[in-house]
């Protein structure tokens, strides 16, 4: 089993683990963590595609690696935005949840 | 040949210290004692590993970089351990 296939299978299992956590956890920040796991799994798949594309004298294909670097930074930016929205939502509704029912049963938070 | 033996012994000693630190993390009863075990053993372990890698460095500059890495880990590890210890002491009062 070459390291490439191994890394690809690790990426696939990370996507599966992340999907499981995303669906199951009720806490929004845990969902965000699981979503980041999915993203990392996808990046690993990109990585093995990059390594397999070794040609023209390089040991790797630089284009997928550049995309992964871009992707990691954009994923962080998206996580930061999600965190800000989650914090504001929890502050307004008083409950730490993504359940839309939270707005019909407000629990002490009032609009600032 | 002699350098290889030196590298292997130093890195094995470093690995042993990391192992000892992990055993302390798992077996000590208290957060403060675990913190003590981790910082002391891990800093020493990293120092031995860096020492073992010094003969294998490509140039004097890479050897210097290894030592700088060890110094930086020492610095941040010590400060972080102080902060965690402070937080632990505050939370148990």
């Amino acid at each position, binding site marked *: *089993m070459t390291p*490439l296939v*191994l*890394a*690809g*299978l*690790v*990426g*696939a*299992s*990370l996507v599966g*683990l*992340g*999907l499981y*956590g995303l*669906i*199951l956890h*009720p*806490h929004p*920040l845990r969902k*965000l963590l699981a979503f*980041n796991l999915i993203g*990392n*799994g996808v990046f*690993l798949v990109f*990585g093995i*595609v*990059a390594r*397999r594309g*070794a040609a*023209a*004298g390089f040991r*790797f*294909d*630089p*284009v997928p*690696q*550049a995309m*992964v*670097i871009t992707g*990691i*930074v954009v*994923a*962080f*930016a*998206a996580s*930061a*935005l999600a*965190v*800000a929205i*989650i914090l*504001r939502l929890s*502050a307004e509704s*008083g*409950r*730490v949840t993504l*359940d839309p029912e939270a707005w019909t049963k407000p629990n002490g938070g009032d609009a600032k | 040949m002699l350098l290889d033996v030196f590298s292997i012994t130093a890195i094995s000693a470093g690995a042993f210290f990391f192992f000892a630190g992990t055993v302390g993390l798992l077996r000590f009863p208290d957060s403060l004692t675990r913190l003590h075990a981790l910082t002391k053993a891990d800093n020493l372990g990293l120092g031995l590993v860096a020492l073992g890698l010094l003969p294998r460095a490509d140039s004097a500059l890479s050897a210097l970089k290894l030592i700088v890495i060890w110094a930086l880990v020492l*610095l941040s590890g010590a*400060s972080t351990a102080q*902060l965690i210890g402070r937080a632990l002491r505050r939370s148990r009062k």
Partner: protein
Amino acid sequence: MSILPYVDIGLALLVVGIASTTVAARDLFAAVVGYVAYGLLLAFVWIRLYAPDVALTEAAVGSGVTGVLLITAGKRLGALKNAVPDAQPALAFKLLAGALAALVAGALGAAILLLPDPPPSLAPEAAAAADGAGAGLGNPITAVLMSYRSVDTMLEKLVLILAVVGVWSVGSDKAWGSAPAELRQPKATAPMVFLAQTLAPVGVLIAIHIFWTGANAPGGAFQGGALLAAMWMVIMMAQLAKLPRIDAQWLRMALVSGPAVFLIFGLAGELTAGSFFAYPHSLAKPIILFIEAFMVLSIAAALPMLVAGPPSERPDQ
């Protein structure tokens, strides 16, 4: 008789194991700590895939700054007094979700085992770009980022700024213009101050080195910018500098300087080198480094602002 295959297998098992504890952990803090450790191990996997630039970015941004973001978020959520968490879902739902996750993972694994052979590659075109517009750059990834796919990189900087604007907009209307909430308690602790005063100068030097050497060796603007951002965050956490007001002019100039300089040179390429985002051949490397310097500034300004969050009202306002 090489030991590397065993290292690879051990690394793979460790990564999947720590990811599982991240998903299955009891509370948020344990999950985030597991995620940071998992990110550092993932950097090892990237090294094994011959991707040192990606490993640097993963360790700095993917695991480091994201960990700070999530721990800060968890602390702020824990501070909400009326927070009541939801109930856990039923067992049948868990089994169904597990089956779906296994199906997706299996499909992806099958696709990986059946990848086309010989593998397609964009490396020849990237090499042509590295010799052409990105002339003189020894690091092919920097050449791809800054000349072959330069529009992508500029748009990514714009995405960072959009995220900052989005995070700022989430704050309440009355607080617009003031500074975000503090990252730590207002009282400075001695170890933190010591760390900031000793680590920050070294960190800034290393960050500039990583950015500068990214032209010919693993490194680059993103990694250097993330390190600079981390040093600024350490200084702010030690209360040696205050969080800036979001309507501060210098902050806004620093944020937009990256994509602005990029765009100016891209438009100038229309006049000097014949097409949008082309660089004149003899000046390519200095221009690329000049643009990257402003990108580093922009990233170093954007990442801490993303972690700090929306502006909050001060009691004295």
